[in-house]
């Protein structure tokens, strides 16, 4: 008799149930030592449902197909000098920031999911985390391959992994993932699997990648969307894990809520850099950060939280502050990088007049009032031959590690500053959100490796900032950094394009 073809549900059940075993002579608590200390109560792992029900054979089949498509495009991109088709040399700086700031996070996600994929005693969760771990490894590899083409023609790509572990602004994404990975496995799943994957990565991989396409960058849009096709599965896992935890035990609800509050705030702060990439670093605009935020956070996230309300979960804390900040953060971040352009591993610039007008139109309530005057000042300084690079080093937030650049939403002219005394030492924060996170777990955040303080302690070479940049960060000073105007990148670009 011919074997009956199994349907998806049966295949998945066989994979995730029949491959597991009971511990008959070993203590399961010793096999899964991280499963209880966070206070999460699991009564029945068999209730775990993966809606995609992807089995390993299908996983390999579809991933292989995605890779074949992707690498065919990389080949075509490189054989046809695809870098010449991007809008202009400014655009490539967004790609540099992506490689140094985002791609290493894919690697951290790979490590994180490999770890939690070992620590859950439920086999369904283990399989899903294992697949996600492999996906994340694929993402970092494909991104490095895609961007290696740019490395042949533009500056600033050469030391991305070295920089990720050291450079002042890269400590922001790096410490975000270190925070998640050093938490327990359930918090990691809420942090990365749910908060980050379900809501926040959309803002990076969907509107920004669409923007890459709109700026002629075939390689980036292709790896972006290829990665994002895995992301849809990750989002579903994130939603599944939260529903599972909430359904398992009512005592899990307040713990999960606290993690949601923490990680949505952490994620919002992290995305400041994406806000700036969208509003300032894409010469051809697809949509403003504000609009992307409304579509992917307010609308999509709002629907999600309405769905979770039945479990007693509410919107993340400080959602009202977050809503106001969408009008401000991209401008504040680009000004910070512009004024620290001597210490950045990519080029910065004053937006063109057309871009300033676009920003006015997109941000009618804030741009002309608070931010256009900055650029008027920058233009005035530049015209005098005194392109503004700020002196000194900025104060950093102890939690998110971002310079304290955010302002009070009831007085956007004034920087928002909070402090807190713990064991006799003073700690500083950019917001109530970051301050609350510290107060919950001060033992953890006193360990923040704040780049500015590390420089002053003498742990980053020196003595001057110049030596820190060239020797400790390995930036090619005078080449990778400073304004795009007159940079080797711009000179080469103009030569290729036949512009005098």
């Amino acid at each position: 008799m011919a074997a009956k073809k199994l349907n998806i549900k049966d295949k998945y059940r066989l994979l995730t149930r029949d491959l597991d075993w009971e511990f008959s002579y070993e203590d399961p608590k010793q096999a899964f030592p991280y499963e209880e200390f966070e206070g999460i109560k699991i009564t029945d792992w068999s209730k775990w449902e993966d809606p995609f029900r992807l089995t390993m054979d299908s996983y390999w089949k579809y991933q292989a197909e995605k890779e074949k498509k992707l690498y065919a495009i990389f080949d075509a991109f490189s054989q046809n000098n695809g870098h010449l088709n991007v809008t202009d040399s400014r655009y490539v700086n967004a790609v540099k920031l992506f490689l140094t700031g985002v791609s290493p996070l894919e690697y951290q996600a790979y490590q994180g999911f490999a770890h939690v994929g070992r620590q859950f005693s439920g086999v369904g969760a283990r399989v899903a985390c294992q697949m996600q771990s492999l996906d994340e490894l694929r993402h970092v590899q494909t991104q490095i391959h895609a961007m290696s083409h740019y490395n042949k023609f533009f500056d600033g790509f050469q030391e991305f992994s070295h920089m990720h572990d050291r450079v002042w602004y890269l400590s922001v994404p790096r410490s975000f993932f270190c925070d998640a990975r050093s938490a327990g496995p359930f918090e990691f799943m809420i942090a990365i699997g749910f908060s980050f994957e379900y809501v926040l990565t959309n803002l990076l991989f969907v509107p920004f990648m669409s923007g890459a396409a709109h700026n002629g960058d075939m390689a980036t849009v292709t790896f972006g969307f290829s990665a994002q096709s895995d992301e849809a599965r990750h989002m579903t896992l994130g939603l599944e894990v939260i529903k599972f935890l909430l359904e398992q035990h009512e005592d899990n609800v307040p713990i999960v809520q606290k993690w949601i509050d923490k990680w949505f705030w952490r994620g919002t702060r992290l995305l400041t850099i994406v806000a700036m990439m969208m509003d300032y670093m894409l010469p051809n605009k697809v949509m403003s950060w504000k609009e992307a935020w409304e579509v992917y956070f307010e609308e999509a996230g709002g629907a999600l939280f309405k769905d979770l309300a039945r479990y007693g979960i509410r919107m993340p804390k400080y959602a009202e502050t977050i809503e106001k900040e969408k009008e401000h953060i991209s401008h504040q971040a680009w000004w910070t990088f512009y004024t620290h352009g001597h210490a950045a591993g990519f080029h910065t610039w004053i937006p063109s007049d057309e871009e300033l007008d676009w920003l006015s139109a997109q941000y009618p309530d804030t741009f002309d009032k608070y931010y256009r005057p900055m650029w008027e000042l920058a233009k005035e300084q530049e015209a005098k031959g005194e392109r503004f690079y700020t002196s000194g080093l900025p104060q950093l937030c102890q939690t998110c590690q971002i310079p304290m650049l955010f302002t009070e939403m009831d007085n956007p002219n004034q920087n928002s500053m909070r402090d807190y005394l713990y064991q006799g030492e003073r700690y500083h924060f950019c917001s109530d959100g970051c301050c609350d996170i510290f107060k919950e777990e001060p033992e953890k955040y006193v360990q923040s490796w704040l780049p500015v303080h590390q420089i002053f302690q003498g742990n980053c070479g020196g003595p001057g900032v110049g030596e820190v940049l060239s020797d400790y960060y390995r930036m090619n000073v005078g080449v990778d950094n400073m304004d795009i105007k007159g940079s080797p990148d711009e000179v080469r670009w103009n030569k290729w394009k036949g512009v005098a």
Partner: protein
Amino acid sequence: MSKVYIALQDNDESRYIVEAIEESNPDATVIHQPAMIRIERENRLVIERAVVEEKMGREWDVQELHINLITLGGNVDEDDDQFVLEWKQ
């Protein structure tokens, strides 16, 4: 009521999937953006294997959707015959 949504890469295969989605969900909204197509609908959206197969003129496995998928919002339920996105509020 909230919207569920799905975004697909803008390519030849997706074109048939989008046609099938429009047929199965006549009041869905289709939005074209650079390199991608976003489809949204109040509360529920379904992709039916039989309809996609008819548009493509070949057999289509529901899990092939993964190849062209960019993102989605809503609770997923997938089996051999259909792929459903839904909010349960």
